[in-house]
């Protein structure tokens, strides 16, 4: 059963969640069983953390939305026109916020329900309590079932995805290095196109990480990486992309031994730090940091001298210096990432 696709696991989970909610609704004899089954169905998500996150948001926003809706309803319930108008306001804002904010869309769902019930019968404080109770039952069932039946944890997904992502970034750098030394621009061109894909992957990892903290709500303190970690990861992605940009343009100094030497030196350090980063993420302690690589001053001057002697246009020199400079920055960033995880691990323990 472990080999089931995430969608199949989700489908099984949702079916069980809804089934249990239906049974509870029947036992308690709820007037509107859909008030617990629908939240249960929508709250059950692909990971346990996401389910908890959605459940908390859904219950909170139902309390706030229905309460505010109830207050407004109390003042306008004498007029059908006002009721319809506020119902329309609810519809408008649900649609407006559905892609922008889960919290606000749930708030307006609660708000709209008040006027919908007002239109077909009436709304009072008993219905408010019932609505909150049923939503809470549905959401709690979803949390419990998602944690027991084929559980998928954001924590595991996060660390697996992060390792894969770092692997892919390293491959990307390797391809860049090989291409720039062999003077082949085609592989770099094809890599450039996949930048958005990398960005999306990074966002997904960040999302899974932000969800991870919900999985620790009832357990020990989580090892939460700060937002800076992802900002730095973002920067790493950007620097790699700049390298691709500048590596793909033909430059007159690419043939220079001096430049190749500098790039090789930088690459050695970068590769070493990529490996350290991967071992830190996977929980190993087999690494030793010696500090970042710095471009040797004399080699840089040699490059400048060469550019003057061979009358190389300034933009080519700018491009080469940029490549060296960004390789240095990438190395610095890798060290920062290793340090962040290392410090966090010392405080909170291992990820895996």
């Amino acid at each position, binding site marked *: 059963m472990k080999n089931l696709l995430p969608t199949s696991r989700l489908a099984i989970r949702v079916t069980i969640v809804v089934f249990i909610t239906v049974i509870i609704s*029947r036992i308690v004899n709820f007037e509107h069983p859909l008030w617990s089954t629908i939240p249960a169905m929508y709250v059950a998500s692909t990971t346990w953390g996401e389910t908890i996150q959605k459940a908390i948001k859904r219950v909170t926003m139902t309390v706030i939305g229905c309460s505010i809706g109830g207050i407004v309803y109390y003042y306008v319930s004498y007029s059908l026109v006002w009721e319809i108008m506020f119902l329309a306001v609810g519809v408008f804002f649900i649609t407006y916020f559905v*892609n922008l904010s889960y919290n606000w869309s749930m708030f307006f769902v609660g708000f709209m329900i008040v006027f919908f019930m007002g239109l077909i019968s009436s709304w009072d404080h008993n219905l408010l309590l019932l609505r909150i109770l049923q939503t809470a039952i549905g959401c709690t069932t979803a949390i419990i079932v998602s944690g027991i039946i084929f559980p998928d944890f954001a924590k595991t997904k996060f660390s697996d995805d992060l390792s894969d992502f770092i692997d892919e970034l390293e491959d990307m750098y390797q391809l860049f290095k090989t291409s720039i030394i062999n003077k082949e621009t085609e592989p770099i061109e094809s890599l450039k196109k996949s930048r958005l894909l990398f960005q*999306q992957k990074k966002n997904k990892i960040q999302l899974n990480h932000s969800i991870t903290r919900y999985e620790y709500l009832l357990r020990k303190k989580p090892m939460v990486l700060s937002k800076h970690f992802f900002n730095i990861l973002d920067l790493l992605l*950007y620097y790699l992309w700049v390298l691709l940009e500048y590596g793909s343009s033909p430059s007159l100094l690419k043939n220079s031994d001096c430049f190749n030497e500098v790039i090789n030196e930088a690459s050695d350090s970068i590769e070493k730090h990529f490996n350290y980063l991967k071992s830190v993420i996977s929980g190993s302690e087999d690494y030793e940091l010696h500090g970042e690589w710095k471009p040797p001053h004399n080699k840089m001057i040699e490059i400048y001298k060469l550019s003057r002697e061979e009358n190389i246009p300034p933009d080519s020199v700018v491009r080469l*210096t940029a490549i060296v*400079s960004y390789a240095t920055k990438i190395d610095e960033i890798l060290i920062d990432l290793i340090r962040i995880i290392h410090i966090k691990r010392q405080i909170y323990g291992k990820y895996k």
Partner: protein
Amino acid sequence: MQKNIKKYIHDKSNIKFFLLNYDVGFLNLKQALKTLFAVLITAVIVYYIVAPPAAILSGFVAGFSSKCIRNGKKSEQFSDLLLACLSFEVMIIFTLFFYHSFWELNIIFVLLCFPAFYVRKFGARYLVFPALSLVLFQITAALPLRLGVLDYCVPVLVAFVVTTLIQLYIFNTVIIPGIREGLLFFNRKYFTLIKNFASGIKDKKNAWFYKELLERDQNLEHIFQSIQTLLENHRSEHLIHDKVNRFIHNQYAFIKLLSLLFEDMTHLAGNKMGENISRAFHLIMVDICYILYAMTKKKNKQSRIEMRFSLLERKIESFTKIGFNINYSSNDNSVIYKPNENNNVSFTDIDYSNDDNSIIYMSNICFAVTRFLALLKEQNKLFQIDKQK
């Protein structure tokens, strides 16, 4: 012109830009308005031709079906809508047979949950409507409305026709104006930031700039997510996919370049470089500001922008030349920059021999200004795409 530019920067209370921060291209706003229209019109029609409670059901169908359209090609949108409405109709009829028994109704509901979520693996088309069909199944059972099977067809049919007309024909969302709004938004942000560069790096402004940049970065994260959602919705249109892709790339590159430039400038400012760099920079940044401003004008003359581009190109060329006007001291292998004869800006006051990194920061600045030109040109091209459409 100066007055207009001032107004352009200081008009921070503009609600349009406030909303654009959250809703790129106002696409969600437009979608919300269209859905509201569809719901209201459907409900009014059904109210008069069937029965008042049926109007509520038809409103739900119209609202749900609007959510099922994936904004691709018109034919795809139509098939999405048709599929959703057929599924809604089937669910409503199902409810008719089972609503009298709690157990029958809910067992059917539980059994349908599995396929409704399992079909998600077949793609984005099956992401929304199967679950919404289940919601409708429960809503129909809860409504105090018992009609014949044929009468149940009318609300769905009316909702289908009205939604098709409103969503696909009368107010069909075109993504290109959305991109334009996004471009206007970003150009405005860059303008504010670059304007600060033009006035030079001074200590008192550092904190402000950094805060502003961070804020933009955080906003960007959100905006990129919106754009990516947009992209997912338009994945069937490769041309649009490409444009949105280019749009995202360029804005991302712009904001990161500003961060890098800031970092390099701050470093060199500490090396007594601030004032000189500011002077050289001022010339370039003023031109960049002008181009950014001119691009956003609806009636801008492309020839004028082109002229500014060539001017800027020349200035950047001379700027990079200054940066690499190097003399070498053969004794200790240190670097000395000699004053440029044709330009009143010089970098002689940098002591490169003491600070290995300064040479890198200096070339980074040269690199950054060169890159600004490329990004500006791409931004201008993106505006042109909008006009061609």
